[in-house]
């Protein structure tokens, strides 16, 4: 299966998606779902307007802060639960069940605690992101082969040397997977937060557009978000593959 044939097939699928979009537009009507081409035009015109950029900045800021919290707290919990066997055994099922819960139900609680401003969305995004980071970091540390630790002792490494030069490189690939998944769910959490009771941010832009029946605006924001998420994920995946290839 040559790379060019694969790329061509993928382009065929993309084309099929565009065609179905056009068909759906014909069925659904102008205000419900605009056609692909007008959407693209609208996007190019509005991408640089101050209104769009303001919303984009808000979302970006919230995402940034939320990621710092997700990664920081998630890594700390993951390292502790990975290194301390008992805490890991006790805590893992708790984290796993939290992970599969509809966390949107907790959003009102977050709002009551943090208010309606940026902090609420940041907290909600972090609430989403902490879990996969913690779980995968814990897994990474737990599955470090015992023989690495014994080798480190045989070579008379200090505890600090063992952590920095053996444990960390060994656990890095899987930890990075956690960071990548954490990125995705943190973004989702931030967007969900913005879709409810919010006046700023890309999520609220979409909800606004629904209420005002502005189809092109909706699709524009959706496309921007999709493209951003896909590219960011692609980048993180590329780094992840490079880390994993050596293992």
């Amino acid at each position: 299966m040559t790379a060019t044939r694969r790329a061509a097939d993928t382009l065929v699928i993309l084309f099929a998606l565009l065609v179905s979009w056009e068909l759906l537009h014909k069925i659904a009507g102008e205000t419900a779902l605009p056609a692909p081409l007008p959407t693209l035009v609208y996007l190019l015109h509005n991408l640089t307007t101050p209104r769009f950029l303001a919303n984009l900045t808000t979302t970006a800021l919230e995402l940034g802060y939320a990621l710092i919290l997700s990664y920081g707290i998630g890594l700390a919990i993951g390292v502790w639960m990975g290194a301390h066997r008992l805490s890991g055994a006790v805590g893992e099922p708790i984290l796993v069940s939290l992970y599969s819960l509809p966390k949107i139900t907790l959003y009102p609680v977050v709002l009551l605690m943090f208010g309606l401003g940026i902090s609420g969305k940041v907290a909600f995004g972090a609430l989403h992101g902490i879990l996969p980071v913690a779980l995968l970091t814990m897994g990474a540390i737990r599955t470090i082969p015992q023989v690495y630790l014994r080798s480190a002792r045989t070579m008379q490494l200090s505890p600090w040397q063992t952590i920095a030069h053996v444990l960390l490189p060994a656990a890095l690939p899987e930890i990075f997977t956690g960071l990548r998944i954490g990125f995705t769910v943190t973004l989702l959490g931030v967007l969900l937060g913005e879709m409810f009771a919010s006046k700023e941010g890309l999520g609220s832009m979409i909800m606004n557009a629904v209420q005002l029946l502005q189809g092109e605006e909706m699709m524009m924001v959706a496309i921007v978000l999709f493209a951003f998420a896909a590219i960011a994920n692609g980048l993180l995946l590329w780094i992840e593959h490079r880390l994993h290839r050596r293992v």
Partner: protein
Amino acid sequence: MTRIGLIRLVVVIVAVGALELACRLGLINHNVIIPPSEMASALWTLLASGTLNAEIERTLGMIALVIAISIAAGFAIGCVIHALPRVREALDPFFATYYAVPVFIFYPVLIAIFGLSIMPIVLIGVATAVVAMIIATLNGLDRVPRVLAKVARVHRLGRIATALQLQLPAAAPYLFTGVKLSVSYGFIAVIAAEFILAPAGLGRDISEAYADFDNRRMYALILFILIVATLVNAVLHGFDMRLAQRRSGGRA
């Protein structure tokens, strides 16, 4: 119960107890979080009055519908794609990125197309859950050892018998992981949709209670959904562990 299970139970009880104490002592503002015991009693009253039954039916019914469609369609589509390697390779980048993009932001678009009804909720639910089932089906069918097909031919089994008696059981643990994910994604998507914008349902009920400053009702509903979701996921997880044990030989 194992020693670790016991410790876990104690940890949870202590956590809930600490929350209760903090609320009762006034360390936590009553307008922000109410004591867990009040949450429970509010829920009990609500359930006993029967006023919630219609909403419970509606929401849980929609979740069940979403899950059923996702599992059936996901499995069927997965089988078809598995039989067409070239299509699979072309779709690979999409499957890889599907759960990296916030698919849920299409929910408002669906509302614009179908109006404020059941359709957009069911659609976004299926859209979220079905791909997990497809990917799990592909994985499961991949893991069916090739030697099984040869064994089937030695025993002169037809194609359907081979599929049902050998391939399906071999793929079952992976398929079940897909079921588990579909269930949890179905829950998450439907509740989120109802919460953000919907004509009715438990999710919308929570957002209304929040807007009305009716904390008792709000926390009662939150508690209900958390309990149901936790129970369902826990039961499925238990099954998954038992299936996994069979897969790995049963010896710890």
